[in-house]
C-alpha cells in the first residue's frame, strides 16, 4: 500500500495487535474446536460464540453481484478446514473460479468442486456433503429452499458437524430460516479503494440478541485480512444519497 497514510498504518498495527489479543483470549475462553472463527474478527465480536459453531448453517445474503460476500464466506471455509477436513464447493452454475479461492488460502488438495447439472442433484449433493463428517465446510448457492428442505439441511449439518455456508439472494431475508446465523453483506464504496474494499456485514439473525447489529469491514487486497473499516475514512453512503 504505497499511498496509505502513516496514521492509517499505525491504526492498522494497533488493530492487528488487538486482533491477536482477541485470538489469544478466545483460544483460552472457548478452548475447543466447536467454534470456527469467521476469518473476520470484527464479525466474530458480533456473534454470540465469537465465531460460527460447527454443525450449523450460515446464510449469507447479498443483493446483486460483485458484493464481496463469497470472499468472506470462503474466508470462513478456510478457517473451518484449518484443522483438516475438506471444503466442498457445490458449483452448479459452473462459474466458481478455483484459482481465486486458492489465493484466499484454501489448499487445492482440500477443495472438492462438485458440478451437478440438475438442481435436484445439486440439493442432494449438498445434503450428502453436509452429512459427511470429513467435510469441514460446504459452500452452496441453493436456488430454492423451502422449509422442509431447509430443515433437512440443518439436520444434515448437525449430523456431519461441519459448516453449511449458503449463499442466498437478499430477497429471502424475511423468509423463515433454519440457519443459526443469517448475515447480509452489502458492498460500500470506498474513498480510498486502493487499500482494499469496504463491506457492511449485518447480522440479520443469530441465537443471541444482536440481531440487526452491523459492522463495516475492509478486506485487504493483498493479504485478504478483514479489518474493521477505519472510522476516519467513513464516507457518506452514496447509495442512500442516490435514493437507491
Amino acid at each position: 500500500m504505497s499511498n496509505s497514510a502513516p496514521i492509517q498504518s499505525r491504526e492498522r498495527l494497533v488493530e492487528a495487535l488487538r486482533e491477536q489479543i482477541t485470538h489469544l483470549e478466545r483460544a483460552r475462553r472457548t478452548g475447543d474446536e466447536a467454534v470456527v472463527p469467521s476469518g473476520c474478527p470484527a464479525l466474530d465480536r458480533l456473534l454470540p460464540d465469537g465465531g460460527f459453531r460447527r454443525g450449523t448453517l450460515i446464510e449469507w445474503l447479498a443483493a446483486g453481484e460483485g458484493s464481496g460476500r463469497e470472499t468472506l464466506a470462503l474466508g470462513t471455509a478456510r478457517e473451518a478446514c484449518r484443522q483438516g477436513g475438506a471444503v466442498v464447493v457445490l458449483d452448479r452454475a459452473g462459474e466458481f473460479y478455483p484459482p481465486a479461492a486458492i489465493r484466499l488460502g484454501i489448499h487445492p488438495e482440500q477443495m472438492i468442486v462438485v458440478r451437478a447439472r440438475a438442481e435436484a442433484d445439486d440439493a442432494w449433493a449438498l445434503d450428502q456433503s453436509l452429512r459427511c463428517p470429513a467435510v469441514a465446510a460446504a459452500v452452496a448457492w441453493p436456488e430454492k429452499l423451502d422449509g422442509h428442505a431447509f430443515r433437512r439441511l440443518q439436520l444434515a449439518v448437525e449430523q456431519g458437524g461441519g459448516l453449511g455456508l449458503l449463499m442466498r439472494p437478499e430477497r429471502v431475508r424475511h423468509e423463515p430460516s433454519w440457519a443459526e446465523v443469517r448475515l447480509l453483506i452489502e458492498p460500500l464504496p470506498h474513498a480510498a479503494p486502493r487499500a482494499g474494499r469496504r463491506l457492511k456485514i449485518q447480522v440479520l439473525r443469530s441465537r443471541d440478541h444482536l440481531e440487526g447489529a452491523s459492522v463495516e469491514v475492509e478486506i485487504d487486497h493483498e493479504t485478504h485480512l478483514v479489518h474493521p473499516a477505519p472510522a476516519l475514512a467513513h464516507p457518506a453512503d452514496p447509495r442512500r444519497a442516490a435514493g437507491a
Partner: protein
Amino acid sequence: MCIRLQRWPIQRIRAERPELEAKPIVLCETRRASRRVAACSTEAEALGIAVGMPFAEATALAGAEKLRPEAYDPSGDREALEALAVECARFSPLVGLDDSPTPDSLLLDVTGLAHLFGGEPALAAAITRDFARRGLTAHVALAPTIGAAWAVAHFLQDKQAACGFAPPSQTGRSRKRLSAATIIPPDGTAAALRPLPVEALRLSDDVVELLHSLGIYHIGQLESLPREDLTTRFGPQLLERWDQATGRRAEPIRAQPQPHELRVERSLDYPTTRRRTIELVVEQLIGQLARMLVREGRGAVRLDCRLHAHPSHTVNLSVGLFEPSAAPRHLFELIRMQLDRVWLASPVSAVSVEAALTAPFERRQEELFADGRSWRRPRQLAGLVDRLAGRLGRGSVLRARLIRDAEPELAYQYEPLVAGCHGHLARAFSDALARRQCHPTRKVKVDRRLAHKRHPGELPPRPLRLLARPFRLAVVSIMPDGPPLQFQLEGRPERITHTWGPERIETGWWRGRPVRRDYYQTETTTGRRYWLFRDLAAGAWFLHGTFE
C-alpha cells in the same frame, strides 16, 4: 510334464498372423546400435540365417524383398506364454513357466491326474490337440521329474525329428501339425537321460563349455565321474541340476497364479421388473462378492452390475470408487443409486455383479492427504466422493489444480477424484486422460513444474466468479486505450469510480486461439467489483467475472 513350444517367438507370431505360415521369418533386436537376428524360423534357417547374425547379413542371404523383419519382443512372448499357462489350468492345477530368462515351455504337475484323461498318452494327445487348435506345435514330454521332462522335450525330440520320427506334416493350408509326445516311465529316468547332451541339464553356458573342453558331451558320461568332486570342479549348478533331473533332489514348479474371477451371478426363477426384488438380489450378490473380496484382502475399485432382461436386453450399471472398498452396504448403496435411475423395459431374468477392478486394501489414495494436511476421516470422505461420483458421474466431482498459464480460463484444470477405467494402478495415466477430457479442443503445452508450488500470495488477483463465456458490454471510456468509465449491465448504467489495471494478457499465436486482452478490475459507485477486459483484437469490451 513339460510342454515345449519350439521357436516360441516365431510360433507366436505365426499363430497371430497365419499369412506368415511357411515363410522365412526373422525377429530382430537392436543391440548396441546394430540390428541382429534374435530368432528365425526353420525356413529362414534353411537359407543360412542363424541367430545372432547381423540383420544386414541375413538380408543378403535371403534377399531384401523376401525377408520382412519383425520386432523381437521377449516380454510379449513371456506374457503370451503366461496366458497359455493360465489356460492350461484345465489340464493341471499346477502350471508354471520354465525358469530361463526367455522361457519357451510350460511345466505341469500331472501327478495322479492322467487317469482323468484316460491315461498318460491320452493326456499328452489331448494337450497336443489343444495346442494344434491354437496353431501351435507342442512337444510334450512326461517324466517323473521336471528336469527330465524338460531335457526330453528339448533334446530327445530334436533328435527324433532329425531322424524322421516326427515328420512335419504341413499339407498345404490345413494347419494341422503333428506334435510328438514322449513318455518316460517312472524307472526309466536315468536311462532316458544318459544319451542326452549335457545341455539338457539346463546348465549355464560356461559350465557346458567346461564340460565340452573335458570331452564330456553326454549325461551318461557324468556317471563315471566321482560325484563328490563335481561341485568343486564345476560349481554347485551341475550337481543340483543333475539331481533335479534324476529325482535325487526335489524341484518345485513356480506356479502361474490363476486370476480369480470376482463375479457372482444369479438367475431369477420368475423374471420380474419389481425393483424391490431386484434390489434384494443385488444386495445379496454384493454381500457374497464382499465376502470374496475380504478373503482376498482386496477392495473393489470398479464394480459392474448387469441386469439381464428378456430376451437380449442388458442393463449395465458401473460404479467407480475413490478408494478400494469391500463394505457391502457402501457398494450396494452406490449401485442402488444408479439402479434408481434405470428404467426397466422388460423383466429381468438374471443379475450378475462383478468386481471388475480391485486393489489391495493398503494401497490407499495418498494424493489428497499429501503435505501433512490430514483429513480427519479419510474413509468417510472416500465414501462421500464415491456417492457423489456414483450419482453425478465421475466428471462432476473434481479437484482443481493450478497451472501456470496467463490465460485465466486455462490457469487451472479440473481432475476427477474417482479413478476411471484404469483404476489406481494407472492413476497418473487416467489423470492425464481426464485432463484431456476437460479440455478436448485445447492442445496447450504448459509448464506445470512450478504451478502447484506457488504461494497463494503470488497469484494475481482474480475474481471468485468467472463467467463461462465473457459477456459483451457497452462501455464508455474517454481515451481509446484508456480505462472504462461506465458500462451498461442489464439495461442500467454502472458508473465506475475506480479501476485497477490494465493487466495485459497476451498469448502466442501458436496456441491456435490467441488472446490479447487488457483486464481492468473496476469498482462501481455502489462498491461492486467487476472484472472487465478490452479485447485488443476486436476492440470490444467484455465482462469476464465478478469479485464476489
